[in-house]
């Protein structure tokens, strides 16, 4: 490209956006980081009294426990989404182009209904007096309603439901890009369909799977609405802890600390994913 463009163009174009993001993203996030070293004010806000307690508090078993539990639950959700989403994406990739579009739209469509309403729909379903229990009892499968709502399992179902489309889409994208001739070649060389899948399709779809895992893990980890509404307040995740520090406990510095730790964890996960998928995509070429 021409060097004149490079020299003149950037500044007037970049300045407004960069400035805006500095003021409304970098400074607020920096402010949070700064607040983590100070003491809470009585009604929220902050008292400028230096302390490392907020960081020390993270390692109290109680809070460490909530963080570990959130990671655990987000992982379970991610694995379930992969197990359910992979065959779905694989199925869609095999459809005729016309049906493929319909199938994809059908995956995305629930996403456009307000997510709170979708969450509440699960309350209608899983409630002791809810539809699933009514059906089970109607079919004579159970006598007493089964308690399904307000359990950690219900939270996992709710999160899985919320983020499954985010797993299917990138998986579909990577499966779709596979060259069918590769698989053909494998079968022509005598590989069984399963072996062809395992040696050709599966490895090449891993980057898509990794992206999907990130798309599911990251929001699942910080969601606070689903644990509250579907979990009955009995199981709390990091997101709830952060929210409660701001609106119930009024401990902004500790809330800020938790949110930053959450972000750092997620950034690490994303960096690892990036590194892994780069190695994977570069690998075959070198070999």
């Amino acid at each position, binding site marked *: 490209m021409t060097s004149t463009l490079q020299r003149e163009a950037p500044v007037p174009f970049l300045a407004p956006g960069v400035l805006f993001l500095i003021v409304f993203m970098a400074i607020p996030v920096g402010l949070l980081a700064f607040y983590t070293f100070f*003491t*809470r*004010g*009585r*009604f*929220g*806000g902050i*008292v400028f*009294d230096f*302390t490392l*307690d907020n960081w020390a508090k993270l390692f109290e078993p*109680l*809070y460490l*426990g*909530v963080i570990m*539990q959130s990671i655990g639950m987000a992982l379970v959700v991610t694995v379930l989404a992969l197990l359910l989403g992979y065959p779905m994406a694989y199925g869609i990739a095999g459809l005729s182009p016309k049906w493929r579009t319909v199938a994809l739209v059908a995956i995305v469509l629930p996403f456009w209904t307000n997510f709170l309403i979708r969450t509440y729909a699960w309350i209608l379903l899983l*409630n*002791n*007096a809810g539809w699933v229990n009514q059906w089970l009892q109607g079919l004579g499968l159970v006598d007493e309603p089964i*308690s399904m*709502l*307000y359990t950690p399992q219900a939270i996992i179902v709710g999160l899985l439901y919320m983020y499954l489309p985010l797993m299917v889409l990138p998986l579909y994208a990577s499966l779709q890009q596979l060259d069918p001739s590769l698989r053909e070649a494998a079968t022509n060389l005598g590989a069984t369909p399963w072996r062809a899948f395992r040696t050709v399709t599966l490895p090449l779809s891993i980057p898509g799977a990794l992206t999907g895992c990130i798309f599911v893990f990251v929001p699942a980890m910080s969601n606070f609405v689903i644990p509250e509404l579907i979990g*009955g*307040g*009995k*199981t*709390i995740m990091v997101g709830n*802890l952060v929210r*409660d520090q*701001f*609106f*119930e*406990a*009024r*401990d902004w510095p500790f809330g800020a600390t938790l949110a930053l730790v959450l972000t750092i964890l997620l950034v690490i996960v994303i960096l690892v994913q990036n590194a892994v998928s780069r190695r994977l995509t570069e690998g075959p070429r070198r070999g």
Partner: protein
Amino acid sequence: MPTMRRIATAAAGSLALALAATSCSTGGDATETLDPNADLSEQTLTVSIWADYYPEDLAEQFEAATGVKTTIVNHTTNEDIVAKLTASSDPGIDVAFVSGQYAQALGEQGILAKLDKSLIPNEENLYPEALELAYDEGNVYSEPYAWGTTGLCYRPDLTGYDPTSWNDLLDPKPELVGKTTMLSTDRWLSMPALKAAGHSLNTTDDAELEEAKAQLIETKPTLLAYDDTTFYSKLVSGEAAMVEAWDGWCNYGIAEDPSIKFVVPEEGADLWVDTMTVLESSKNKEAAMAFIDYILDPEVQTWVAENILYKVPNKAAMEALDPALIDSYPTLGITVDELTQQETIVDLGEDTVKYVDLNAEVLATN
């Protein structure tokens, strides 16, 4: 170490409080020169109330009566409104409805204006007891809107008996496991455990709080859920058999299922008061006082009792209440004496943190 932290926090906090007090003293003391003849139609009013806690046409009614252009907005919890009130120096709200202990704390912080009683003649309609409540004696910063207590709201057909003690909730019979809910907000989470053990619900004694915490953690697995907002529907739908409930909210369940009953456990409970306060930052204080006065009109406040089914501290209003309503909703019949025997929730200043920590720990423990 934790104690060191608490002391440091407390010291820093009181410094901040002192600073806040001095910086706000200009507004706080000056029993401001409010103009009794101010042209109210020149003023506008923004009132923040809990949702569904007032007549739908309240703004129009008040506007018709006084000419003040009124906007009513909603908040969901005390924490919610207090956070917004303290987050900025001018939250754009003139009158805020908060529970008594919050009115106390906000008043001490200089966030509330002292009420100008000359503009609130309807205060005389209140029960004398309603002027001597521990969180704001003499109603300096707040006038009561509704009051009540907390107890067990239950369905006798599902419990099979009439509970009498907080222990019926804290240590439920095996057949009630998974069929009870507790409040999780603020002081109401710890209240049953503190009262059951014979402690004050305003205690700041670490050992007593520790004891309550242990009890609550033990109770947690027996609960269906923590629920501050829909517990009465859970009774109606039969999901729950017994719930910790504010008396007025239990009535919402009774309205749908008259077999539902309410009892204040024998160990006693709280006296909570929802109050009306005026913000120091308000530029429409005359209109704000007029609004409070308007609410204290017996006819207006009767509406609260009749429609919200909460008791109101307004003697004239309660006496005007239809006895048939009290028959249907026995909690409305709890007398002022019975009510004022319960312990008033007061703000604990820096020790509030102890309750905040207790709640966090109970809710985060599996």
